[in-house]
């Protein structure tokens, strides 16, 4: 029973016609991050340090939607979130609404280790980052031209969609304030038929089990393209996009809202624990049956050294390796 590591750069509708330059950039980044993680594990670093290290590297690379290279909100701004969880102690840390912190995952770890809380967001989180002396940069540092283009495309599609769908600015508020006992039943198609959000849900994440069987999960993201300002996804919601306990560690990626509803990361661990099945069986049940098709994927490790990656989208940027095994890097099924 040795160490194991798996990392992802996001699941989504990744076209097989991916431009070669991008494919190569992605594969190079995945390989580089995997090497970093493996080398740290081979030097007997603890799972918590390895997971943070790898996610920092993923955040630094603008090819993925986390840290620098984060996708933009509908206002053209960046709001990053991250979460880290230590399986053996179940200590965890999460942050949301960051706009200047170079390594959101490191801030999440500081929330875990240096505050009485688990989750800090927006101004409070930014203030804490400064107080802790974490590296920060101007918001413009995180904004890439590619993401500005993605936002423009998404907003174009949104406008077109708005013309044809029931989603309009005259939505009936669900309550009659004068007569709280008489609510109007509001059921409408909020999401236009074709999701204008770019389908590549490129969160990044890493799960690690070290040679002592300690499992850690770490996840980081810029969120959804054209998301409403203030929108929080699954990444910082412990149990949804990120989770670890004495049995396993899970990092998910995909349509955040669906992952929250399905409490994906926690579900994998709960199925392992209560149904007493191995990691791959638990993962298959969650990704294959509980998470609606096309909505995401995850990477996971178990305390006994299993490494599993699964997705129900067209593709998921991923890499993994077990001690004594060979490295795996992939994009599609």
């Amino acid at each position, binding site marked *: 029973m040795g160490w194991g590591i798996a990392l992802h750069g996001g699941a989504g509708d990744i076209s097989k016609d991916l431009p070669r330059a991008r494919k190569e950039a992605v594969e190079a980044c995945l390989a580089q991050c995997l090497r970093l993680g493996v080398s740290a594990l081979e030097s007997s670093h603890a799972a918590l340090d390895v997971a943070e290290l790898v996610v920092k590297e993923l955040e630094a690379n603008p090819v993925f939607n986390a840290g620098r290279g984060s996708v933009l909100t509908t206002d053209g701004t960046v709001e990053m979130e991250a979460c880290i969880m230590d399986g053996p*102690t179940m200590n965890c840390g999460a942050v949301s*609404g960051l706009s200047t912190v170079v390594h959101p995952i490191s801030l999440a770890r500081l929330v875990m280790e240096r505050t*009485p809380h688990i*989750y800090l967001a927006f101004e409070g989180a930014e203030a804490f980052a400064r107080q802790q002396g974490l590296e920060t940069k101007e918001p413009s540092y995180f904004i890439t031209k590619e993401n500005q283009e993605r936002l423009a495309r998404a907003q174009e599609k949104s406008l077109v969609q708005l013309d044809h769908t029931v989603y309009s600015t005259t939505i009936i*508020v*669900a309550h009659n304030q004068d007569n709280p006992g008489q609510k109007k039943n509001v059921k409408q198609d909020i999401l236009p038929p074709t999701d204008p959000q770019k389908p590549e849900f490129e969160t990044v994440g890493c799960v690690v089990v070290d040679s*002592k069987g300690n499992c850690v999960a770490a996840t980081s993201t810029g969120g959804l393209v054209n998301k409403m300002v203030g929108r929080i996804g699954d990444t910082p*919601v412990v149990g949804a996009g990120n989770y670890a306990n004495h049995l396993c560690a899970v990092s998910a990626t995909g349509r955040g809202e669906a992952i929250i*509803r399905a409490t994906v990361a926690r579900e994998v661990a709960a199925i392992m624990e209560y149904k007493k099945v191995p990691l791959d069986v638990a993962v298959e049940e969650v990704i294959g049956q509980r998470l609606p098709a096309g909505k995401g994927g995850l990477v996971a490790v178990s305390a006994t050294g299993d490494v599993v990656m699964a997705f129900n989208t067209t593709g998921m940027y991923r890499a993994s390796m077990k001690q004594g095994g060979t490295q795996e890097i992939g994009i599609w099924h």
Partner: protein
Amino acid sequence: MGVWAIALHGGAGMIAKEKMTADWKKRTEAALNEILDVGIAALRNSLPAVEAVELVVRALEDNTLFNAGKGSVLTNKGTVEMEASIMDGRSKNCGAVSGISTVVHPVSLARLVMDNSPHVYLAFDGAEEFARQQGVETVDTNTFITEENREKLENAKKTNSVELDFSEHAPDDLNSGDNEDTRTNGNGAAHAGYNPGQREIANEKTNDHPDRFAIKKKCALHQVFKAEFETVGCTAVDVWGNCAAATSTGGLVNKMSGRIGDTPIVGAGTYANHLCAVSGTGRGEEFIKHTVAKEVAAIMEYKELPLGKAVYKVIHEKLPENMGGLVAVSTSGEVAMAFNTPSMFRASAQEGGERMIGIW
């Protein structure tokens, strides 16, 4: 058609019987009865569970006796940052908000996020902006601040500064409430009846983990928060067997600005699916770590236990002592309420069955 059932809470905490004045007790019981009636009326009128829980939580938010909406506790800056969530077990749709400072009914804003936006969770400026866009009732933020809560904040700050002087602790002492040296109440004093022999579970699982996580914590710094965890919440199952849950809170007294607790975290403080609905109250950080609300549902589903047993396991075997409680209902009309703190304001009723209100 099945039977309806409802269970609501006004917060778990450390209120000893002797500490509660007769007047306070009377007002609290009256409020719980009145608000229970709101929920019962809704369910009797065949409103869906998700409507009923929203109505009840709105009433709890209006009442300054509880820590939600008006009467929310204050952050370390003396401001109000409210959060809420709602979940419809039938569809598993959910909505959550955090960092709300002017919206009169955070639970209703959470519902609008669920019904009127492509998202599940909005926070701070973005949530406030959405509130204005949706035309919900907002007031000046000072309206939520009560004199009592200003005092609570001052007291908490005093305790804080005393604790900070004593600390030579390792930085990560701060995160967990479940270690045996600091089983104290929110103000640092050892809780009567505390048994140092319990809670070995966390240590068993460390697998020779690096020392810094296994250190016996010496300082109660993490316990400086006022121990009355008065979140509010409601769970209901309607005549069609659909469950829903809603929770709302001001959070922890003297919390860091920007701190988010378990209330808006689906699976932690609120959860509902085809089996049951759960709303928790207590030390938010513990509810998040242990994904408390989801745990009840998972135990019901995977261990095939009835609601009462699942709730008991979670509150008395998984959640560290003195950390909180929850209320829950199941699709078949069961009601379960449990807490491992000295008190939890609560009320429940079942169609054709008993109604009850309780504090201890």
